[in-house]
C-alpha cells in the first residue's frame, strides 16, 4: 500500500496483535500527536470518507478518551477508553471499548515509543480478552505468520477477497 513504510501488523503470543511503524520525527513530537486532540483529529481514522467528529483525550493515569467517527453513509463508530499508564514521551496504556462492541471483553492498547537516530518507532500492542477473540480480529488477511497455519482458509479468503475487490473497487 504505502511503499517506503515499514508498517507491520502481526500476532504475538496468545492474545496480542502488534502493529509497528517508524516515523522520521523526534519521539516527543510523535507523542504529542498521540495525545493532543487537535493533532489526533488530523490522522486517526480519517480514511475513505470517515471523519472524526468527537475527540477528547485526557492524558494522565485515570484520564479518559473518547473518539467518535462518522462514516460516508451515516455510520457512527464510537470508542472510549481509560488510561491505565501514562509516561511521556514513551508509553500510553489504556483499556478501550467500542460503543457497540462485537467481541467479548475490553481490549488493552499500549503505545510504546522508542527513538533511534532521529527516527521514532511506535509499537501498538492490542491485547484481547482471549485467544479466540485475537484470532478472530487478526484473521488471515493481516499477517502472513498466521496465514501459514491456516492454509485452507487462506485459499478461501484470497479467492473471496479477489471477487470482493472487483465488486467494491478497493
Amino acid at each position, binding site marked *: *500500500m*504505502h511503499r517506503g*513504510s515499514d*508498517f507491520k*501488523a502481526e500476532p504475538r503470543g496468545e492474545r496480542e496483535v502488534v*502493529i509497528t*511503524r517508524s*516515523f*522520521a*520525527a*523526534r519521539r*516527543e*513530537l*510523535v*507523542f*504529542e*500527536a498521540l*495525545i*493532543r486532540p487537535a*493533532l489526533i483529529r*488530523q*490522522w*486517526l481514522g*480519517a*480514511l*475513505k470518507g*470517515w471523519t472524526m467528529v468527537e475527540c477528547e483525550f485526557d*492524558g*494522565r493515569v485515570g484520564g479518559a478518551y473518547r473518539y467518535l467517527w462518522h*462514516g460516508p453513509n451515516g*455510520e457512527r*463508530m464510537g*470508542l472510549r477508553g481509560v488510561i491505565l499508564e501514562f509516561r*511521556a*514521551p514513551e508509553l500510553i496504556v489504556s483499556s478501550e471499548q*467500542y*460503543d*457497540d462492541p*462485537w467481541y467479548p471483553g475490553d*481490549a488493552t*492498547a499500549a503505545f510504546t515509543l522508542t527513538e533511534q537516530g532521529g527516527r521514532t518507532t511506535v509499537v*501498538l500492542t492490542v491485547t484481547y480478552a482471549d485467544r*479466540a477473540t485475537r*484470532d*478472530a*480480529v487478526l*484473521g488471515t*488477511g*493481516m499477517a502472513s505468520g498466521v496465514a501459514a497455519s*491456516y*492454509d*485452507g*482458509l487462506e485459499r*478461501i*479468503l484470497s*479467492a*473471496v*477477497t479477489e*471477487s*470482493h475487490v472487483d465488486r467494491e473497487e478497493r
Partner: protein
Amino acid sequence: MHARRPDRHEAATLDAVFSALADGTRRDILARLMDGPASVTELARPFAMSQPAVSKHLRVLERAGLVARGQEAQWRPRRLNAGPLRTATAWLADYREFWEGSFDQLDRLLDSLDGSASRPRSPQRRGNDAPRL
C-alpha cells in the same frame, strides 16, 4: 483498536463466521467445498472422524451461513456460500487499512510539524489536560 465497526447485522455475521472458522476441521471442510459441492460422506472421507461428527461441524458452518444444503439430489450436496466470508474479509482488510492508513497520515502530519519542532514542544497551545514533557 479496529477499523470501522461493523453494523449490527454484520457483527452477528462476523461472530458466527469467526467462531465457525476457529476450528481446523471446519476450515478444511470449507477448503474442500471450494472445489465444488460434496456429500457428507465425501466430506468425511479425509478425516479420521465419524459422519455424525462431520455433520456437527457442518451444522456450525450452516448456522454461520458459510455452507448451504442443496435440495437437488437425494444426497443433498453441501456447497460453499461465500457471502459471509466476504463480510469477514472486508472487515479484516479494514483493520489493517485502518492502521496503515492512519499511520501514513500521522507520518504526513509529523512532516508538516517537524519544521516548527527543532526542539520538542507542543505545536498547539498547551492545555490543562496536557502532561509536562
